[in-house]
C-alpha cells in the first residue's frame, strides 16, 4: 500500500514542481548554442527535454503501464521515436511553427487517451481495443511537431542543421530510455505487489486527471496568449 501511495504522491508532485521542471527548453539553454555542429549540446538538450518534461514522462508511464517485456517496451518506444523524428525533421526543415500551447494540450489529451485505454474504456465502449501501436506512433507525430517548434526557438543556424536535429533526436531517445528505466523500475516493484491489479484502475484515473490538468493548463495558456495578441493589435 505504501508503495502505491508513494507513486501516487510522486505523480501528483511532479506537475506541481513548477518552473524547475517546466516543459520546453529553458531560455538559458540558448546560451549553449553557438554555430555549426554541436553534437553533444543537442544530444543533451534532447535528453533534458524528455527527462524534465513531465508530460512526456506521464505519457510514457501510461504507455508502458501494461507492458511487461522489455521487447514490447522497446517496440513501443521505437514506434514513438519514429513518429516524432518524422515531424521533428519536417518541422525544422520546413520552418513549420505550431503553437506550442496547442501541441502541449494535445500531449495532455494523449495522456488522457492512454489512461482511458488502460482503464479498459475502449474495450468496453467499442468492443475492441484500438491499435495501441498505431496510437503511439500518431502521438509520436504530435510530440515531434512540438519538439520541432521548440527547437526552432533557438534560431538555429543553417550550418550543421541536420546533424544537430539528428543529435537532438538521439538525445530525445536517450532521455526516453533514462525516464523509462526509472519508471520501469518503479513499476516493477509495484507489479510485484498484490495490490497492483486492484489499484491499476485507480492509478489510471490519477493519470487521466493529470492529463486533463495538463490539457487545461495549456488551453488556458493558449487563450491567454490569444487575448494578449488581440489587445496588442487593437
Amino acid at each position: 500500500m505504501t508503495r502505491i501511495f508513494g507513486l501516487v504522491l510522486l505523480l501528483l508532485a511532479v506537475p506541481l514542481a513548477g518552473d524547475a521542471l517546466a516543459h520546453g527548453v529553458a531560455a538559458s539553454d540558448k546560451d549553449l548554442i553557438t554555430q555549426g555542429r554541436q553534437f553533444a549540446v543537442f544530444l543533451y538538450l534532447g535528453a533534458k527535454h524528455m527527462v524534465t518534461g513531465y508530460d512526456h514522462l506521464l505519457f510514457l508511464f501510461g504507455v508502458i503501464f501494461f507492458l511487461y517485456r522489455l521487447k514490447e517496451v522497446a517496440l513501443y518506444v521505437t514506434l514513438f521515436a519514429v513518429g516524432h523524428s518524422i515531424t521533428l525533421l519536417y518541422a525544422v526543415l520546413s520552418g513549420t511553427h505550431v503553437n506550442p500551447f496547442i501541441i502541449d494540450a494535445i500531449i495532455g489529451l494523449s495522456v488522457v487517451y492512454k489512461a482511458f485505454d488502460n482503464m479498459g474504456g475502449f474495450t468496453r465502449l467499442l468492443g475492441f481495443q484500438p491499435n495501441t501501436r498505431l496510437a503511439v506512433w500518431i502521438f509520436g507525430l504530435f510530440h515531434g511537431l512540438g519538439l520541432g517548434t521548440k527547437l526552432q526557438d533557438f534560431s538555429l543556424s543553417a550550418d550543421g542543421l541536420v546533424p544537430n536535429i539528428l543529435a537532438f533526436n538521439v538525445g530525445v531517445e536517450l532521455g526516453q530510455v533514462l525516464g523509462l528505466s526509472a519508471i520501469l523500475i518503479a513499476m516493477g516493484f509495484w507489479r510485484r505487489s498484490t495490490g497492483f491489479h486492484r489499484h491499476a484502475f485507480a492509478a489510471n484515473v490519477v493519470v487521466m486527471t493529470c492529463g486533463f490538468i495538463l490539457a487545461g493548463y495549456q488551453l488556458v495558456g493558449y487563450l491567454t496568449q490569444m487575448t494578449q495578441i488581440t489587445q496588442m493589435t487593437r
Partner: protein
Amino acid sequence: MTLMRSEPTPPTVPQLARAIGVAVVIAGIVLVTAVLPAEYGIDPTGIGSSIGLLRPPASAIDMTIPVTPEAAATVSRPEAAFRSDEMTLTLKPGEGAEIKATMVKGSSYVFSWTVAGGTVEFDMHGEYADGTGGEASYAKGEEAASDRGTFHAPFDGRHGWFWQNLTWQPVTVTLKTSGFYTKIEKL
C-alpha cells in the same frame, strides 16, 4: 504481443463514466484553484490567493542595470505642474506684443509658433524675477514665419517672446507651449 489487462473483464460503462467524471472534476478543481493562479495569475475563486499561490504580475524591467549619474542628470522634475497652452495674437502693421511664461531656473518647455498672413521680427528673451531689471536674449530673427524648439530657463523669471509686425498687413501669431511654468500671459 500479449496485453494483460488490470481486470479480466473491462469495467462497466457506469464505472467508466464515474471514473472520468472524477478525473474531470478533480482536474478542474486543481486547475482553477492551483494551476491557473500559479501559472497565469488567473484566480476566479480567490482560493489561489488565499493559499498564497497567486502569481503576482511580473516586472518586465531589469532593475539590476544601474542608472548612471550622467544618465540620471538628463531628467529633471520641476515643482510646477505640467501644462499645455495655445495662444494667439493678432498684430496690426507696426504693432508688437509679448507672451511670457513664469518659471524657475532649470525648468523647461517645448514650444512652436507660426505666423499666418505674413512674417514677424522677434526677440526670444527673459527677465529676472528679482526686480533688478536684468534681461537675457536667447534668439532673434527677422521676417520669420515660425520657430520651434525646447527652452531651459537659465534663471528664475519670465521667459518668452516679443513679436513685431513690420509688414503692411495684419498677421496672426499662434503659440503652442507645453512644459513646466506657473503662468503664461500676454504682456
